[in-house]
C-alpha cells in the first residue's frame, strides 16, 4: 500500500509559532487566560491554524465582550504571519468558566 506523507511548510515552523502565540498570550493578559493552537486542515483540505482562546470571566461578564474578543483576535493575527505560513487562521473563544464546566484537553 502506498503511504502518502502529508507535510506542510508551517509544520517545520512550529517552534516559531509557539513563541509568537506565547508572546501574544502574555501581552493579552489579563483579558486572555490562555491560548491553545494546532495546525491541521479545514473541511476543504486547506491548511489552517486552529486557535483556541480562553477569555477571562471578567471580560465575558462585560457587555462589550465580543468587541474585546475581536480586538484579541486582531492582535494575535497581527503577530502571526499566517499568509507567509500558508495557513488560514480559525479562532474560537470560550470563557474560563466554560472550560471548567466543559473540560476538554484541547482547551486546557
Amino acid at each position, binding site marked *: 500500500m502506498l503511504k502518502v506523507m502529508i507535510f506542510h511548510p508551517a509544520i517545520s515552523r512550529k517552534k516559531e509559532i509557539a513563541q509568537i502565540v506565547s508572546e501574544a498570550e502574555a501581552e493579552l493578559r489579563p483579558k486572555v487566560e490562555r491560548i491553545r493552537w494546532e495546525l491541521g486542515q*479545514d*473541511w*476543504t483540505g*486547506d491548511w*489552517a491554524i486552529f486557535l483556541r482562546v480562553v*477569555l477571562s470571566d471578567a471580560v*465575558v461578564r462585560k457587555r462589550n*465582550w*465580543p468587541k474585546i*474578543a*475581536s480586538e484579541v483576535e486582531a492582535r494575535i493575527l497581527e503577530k502571526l504571519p499566517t499568509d507567509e505560513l500558508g495557513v*488560514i487562521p*480559525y*479562532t*474560537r*473563544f*470560550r*470563557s474560563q468558566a*466554560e472550560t471548567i464546566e*466543559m473540560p*476538554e484537553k484541547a482547551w486546557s
Partner: protein
Amino acid sequence: MAYHDDLLDQSGHLATRDPRRPKQANLRRAVSTAYYALFHLLVSQAVGYWRLKRQRSVLARSFDHRKMKGACNSCRSQVPELDAVAKAFVILQQYRHLADYDNSTAWTRVEAMEEVTRARSAFAQWEQIKTREEAQDFLLSLFAADRR
C-alpha cells in the same frame, strides 16, 4: 425584512436561548445560521445585479460553497471592510461545517455568540462598501470561473 436579515436575527435568538443551560442543538443551529445569513446576503447581492428578476433564483442556486470559500480566501483587498467580510465568510463556513456535521465538537454560548457577532460585523461592513466597484468585483469572483 430580507431572508438574510431574518437569518441573522434567528442566529442571535438561538445563541441566547436557554439562559442557564444552552442546548447544543440551539448553539449549533446558531452558528450554522450565522453562516447562512452571510451566504444569502452575498448571493442576494450578487444576483440582484441580474436584470431579469425571474432568473435570479436560478442563478442563486449556482453558487457553490467551496468555490465561494476559495474566492474569499484569495481576497486580498485594499478595502479593509471587504477583506473583513471575506475572512468572516471563510471562518463562518468552517464553523458551519463543524456545527452541522461534527458531533464530537461541543459548542459553548461564548463560541456561538462570537460567531453571531462575526456575521453581524460582516453585515455592517458589507453595508459600508456594497456599492463600491471592488465589492462588485468580489461578488463576481464568488461564482465566476477561475481562469488562473
